[in-house]
C-alpha cells in the first residue's frame, strides 16, 4: 500500500495528468484509422494495417491509463488472469475463422 488506503486489486489510483494523456492518445489513435478510411487516401492494405495497429495500441492505452494495469506484484493476479483470457480469446477467434474457412475442404464429392 504505497499511498492512500484504497489500493485494491485492479483499481490503482490515477491522476488528472494520466487521464488527460490517456484521452489525448485515444483520440489520436481513433482519428488515424477513421481518417485513413474516410478520406480513402490510403490503399486497402495500408488502411487495414493502420486499423489493426491503432486498435491494438489503443487497447493498450486504455489498459494502462484508464485501468492502470501494470506489472507490479500487487496486480500480478489481474495481469496473469488477463493474459490467460487473451490466449482464450485468440484460440476462440482465430480457431473459429480457421475452421470456418476450411469447412468445405475435402468435402467435395468425387475428390
Amino acid at each position, binding site marked *: 500500500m504505497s499511498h492512500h488506503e484504497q489500493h*485494491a486489486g485492479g483499481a490503482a489510483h490515477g491522476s488528472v495528468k494520466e487521464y488527460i494523456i490517456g484521452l489525448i492518445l485515444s483520440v489520436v489513435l481513433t482519428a488515424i484509422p477513421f481518417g485513413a478510411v474516410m478520406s480513402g487516401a490510403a490503399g486497402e492494405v495500408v488502411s487495414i494495417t493502420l486499423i489493426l495497429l491503432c486498435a491494438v495500441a489503443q487497447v493498450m492505452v486504455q489498459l494502462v491509463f484508464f485501468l492502470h494495469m501494470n506489472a507490479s506484484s500487487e496486480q500480478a493476479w489481474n495481469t496473469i488472469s488477463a493474459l490467460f*483470457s487473451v490466449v482464450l480469446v485468440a484460440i476462440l477467434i482465430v480457431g473459429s475463422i480457421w475452421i470456418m474457412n476450411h469447412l468445405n475442404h475435402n468435402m467435395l464429392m468425387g475428390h
Partner: protein
Amino acid sequence: MNTALPAPPPGYTGYISEEHHHDYAGDTVFGFWIYILSDCVLFATLFAVFAVLQHNFAGSIEASELFDLSYVAGETALLLLSSFTFGMAMLGANKGSMKALLGWLGVTWLLGAGFLYMEVNEFVHFTHEGAAAWASGAWSAFYGLIGTHGLHVFAGMVWMIVLVGLLLRDGISNENRTRLICLSLFWHFLDIIWICVFSFVFLMGAV
C-alpha cells in the same frame, strides 16, 4: 459430531495466511475482474460469429452501403469521452469530494445516454433500409454483437443510478467505494470493446 467451531474473528477474510492478507475490497474487485474477463470471452465469441458470418448477406442490403463512418465517429467520441469523465469521477471519490464525484458521474451518464440514443437511432434507420436483424446471417451477427454491447452500456447506466442512490444514502463509504471501483472497471471495459467494434465492424467493413 457436535463440535462447535469458534466464531471467526472480526475482519476474517477466509485467508489462511494473514501475512499477505487482502482487504475485502481487494477480493471483491478481483472477483469482479474475473467476471469482466468472462464477459470478454463472451464478446470474443460474438466477434468470432461476426467474423464468420459478415459476408453472408443472402441478398439483403450490404453493410458497406449503409455504414456512415462520421456517425460512428460521433458515437465513438461520446464513449471515449465518457471513459475520461468516469476517471475524473474516480479522482473525485478518492479526494472524498461528493460534489466532484456526482458531477462527473452525471456527465458520464449523459454521455452514455447520448451514445445509446445514437445507437438505437442507427438500428432503427438500418432496419428501415431493409437491414433488420432477421434479414440475413450477417445482419443477425451485427445486431447480436453491437446489441450486446449496447445492453451492457444500458446496464452500466442503470447501475450508475442505483449507485448514486446509495452514495446519497451512505456517502462515500468503503462499500460504495468498492462498488464504484467495480463500475469503473465495467465502464472502461465497455470502451475497450467499442474500440474493437469500430475497428473490426465499421472501419474494416468500409475499407
